[in-house]
């Protein structure tokens, strides 16, 4: 307990000092509030947005896009990755094209996304799906390729059929890799959602900070950024918990 308190205090020193210096700079008028508003002003704005319900609405809108886009991308990547990982023929068939498409950042699809899907949620979800697709796919493929042959032999010896071999052996054996891909995929989805909201929609955290820029409401911009940070942190913690649960059998996680 003592130890915990100590490390907490030590960890808080730098942020507190930064905040104090920042507040001092703003209060003394050293920098204009448009360039850098005081942290107290940012906090007040954040609180105001929270009470008005705007913050909650935008967070849910962004999260909704992340979830739908991610699920769409991962739902395509997972079966494709499982089959490509286990069949050298399919791998040879699909891999060249995928390698060609993979380096194109999802952001580069924005113009096409708008042409194809117009405005609103669909282009945003499309971009997020692309962002999530490749990390999940690549990790699933290498996960399946790294499945220890001994498990496949044991399964065949037990008379396990093709479908069960996929779902009950290869899929769980590849989970450590797949979850790494999921984590990277969610990270990418989170970047892409903010960018896409700056273009195609009129709510969400990305839209809100861009809107605030129009009016030069720096405090609102920073309040929005902090919310994005908090949401990302929450998402990552949830992922971590899921990870620990799904991999509770895994040697590497012995504490």
């Amino acid at each position, binding site marked *: 307990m003592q130890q915990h308190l100590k490390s907490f205090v030590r960890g808080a020193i730098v942020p507190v000092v930064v905040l104090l210096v920042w507040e001092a700079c703003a209060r003394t008028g050293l920098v204009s509030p448009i360039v850098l508003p005081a942290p107290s002003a940012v906090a007040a704005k954040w609180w105001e947005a929270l009470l008005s319900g705007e913050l909650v609405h935008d967070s849910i809108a962004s999260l909704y896009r992340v979830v739908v886009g991610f699920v769409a991308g991962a739902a395509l990547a997972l079966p494709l990755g499982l089959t490509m990982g286990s069949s050298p023929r399919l791998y040879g068939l699909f891999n060249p094209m995928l390698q060609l498409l993979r380096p194109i950042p999802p952001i580069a699809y924005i113009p096409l996304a708008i042409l194809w899907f117009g405005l609103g949620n669909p282009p945003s979800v499309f971009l997020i799906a692309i962002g999530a697709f490749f990390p999940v796919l690549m990790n699933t493929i290498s996960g399946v390729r790294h499945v220890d042959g*001994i498990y496949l032999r044991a399964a065949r*010896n*037990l*008379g*396990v059929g093709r479908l069960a071999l996929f779902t009950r*052996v290869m899929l*769980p054996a590849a*989970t450590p890799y797949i979850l790494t891909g999921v984590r990277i995929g969610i990270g990418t989805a989170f970047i892409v959602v903010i960018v896409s909201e700056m273009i195609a929609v009129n709510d969400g955290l990305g839209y809100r900070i861009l809107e605030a820029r129009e009016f030069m409401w720096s405090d609102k911009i920073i309040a929005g950024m902090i919310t994005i940070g908090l949401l990302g942190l929450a998402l990552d913690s949830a992922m971590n918990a899921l990870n620990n649960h799904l991999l509770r059998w*895994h040697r590497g996680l012995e504490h």
Partner: protein
Amino acid sequence: MQNPQIVVSDVQKVFRTQERDVVALKDINLTIKQGEFVCLLGPSGCGKSTLLNAIAGFSLPSSGSIQVDGQAVTAPGPERGMVFQEYALFPWMTVAQNVAFGLEVKGMSKGAMAERVDSLLDKLHLKDFRNRFPKDLSGGMRQRVAIARVLAMDSPIMLMDEPFGALDALTRRNLQDELLRIWAEFGKTIIFVTHSIEESIYLADRIVVMTYRPGTVKRDHRVAIPRHRDPSCAEFNELKRELGSLVMEEQQRHAAAEMKLAAVD
């Protein structure tokens, strides 16, 4: 011990590698009766695993044939249950799930499955570990689970590739006794690979000593010592000396071959 159950005829296995062809098995002829406990004995590299894998159906012979109950072996199957040296338990399944898996994919009803799994876990002293994951078990425990998994399938034949090789001496003796009990109770046919001479004498009805490259049958010895065998008795040690010198000859050929290879490289 009635009919021949496993018939290996003129089996040859050649591994083609980039540098050369390795003749792992040559002119292997074996007839194993139902209920027999056979040990394959020989130094490293003499083709014990290759022969066992061929009988299991994992890798088919280059020529010759293997028949089980009159049927040619073409693929692995649950009637020839395999216990691997590396345990090969599914780490994402609990002990009970591992034992049940083969029954589950066979479509056995939940009730019958639970009953059989429970009785096996009980028999192999695994009851308190049923909900543990393999990572939490000792090597000896893991091998018990692997044996229970094969017993669950009710395979008439058990193939075991150095199953106790990684265990300490005490655990090893323990599991050997357990295996003999299971063998007597269930009447399995067992083919057991080992490079321990003592282990083979302790367990087997019959010891097949193999030669090193090409792997052939050097000696097919029937162990006449009555069970339960005492490793300190005179007969045991007599046989140990005899088989020891056979294995040593092959061991020396192995060493000589390696020296020659090293000189060529």
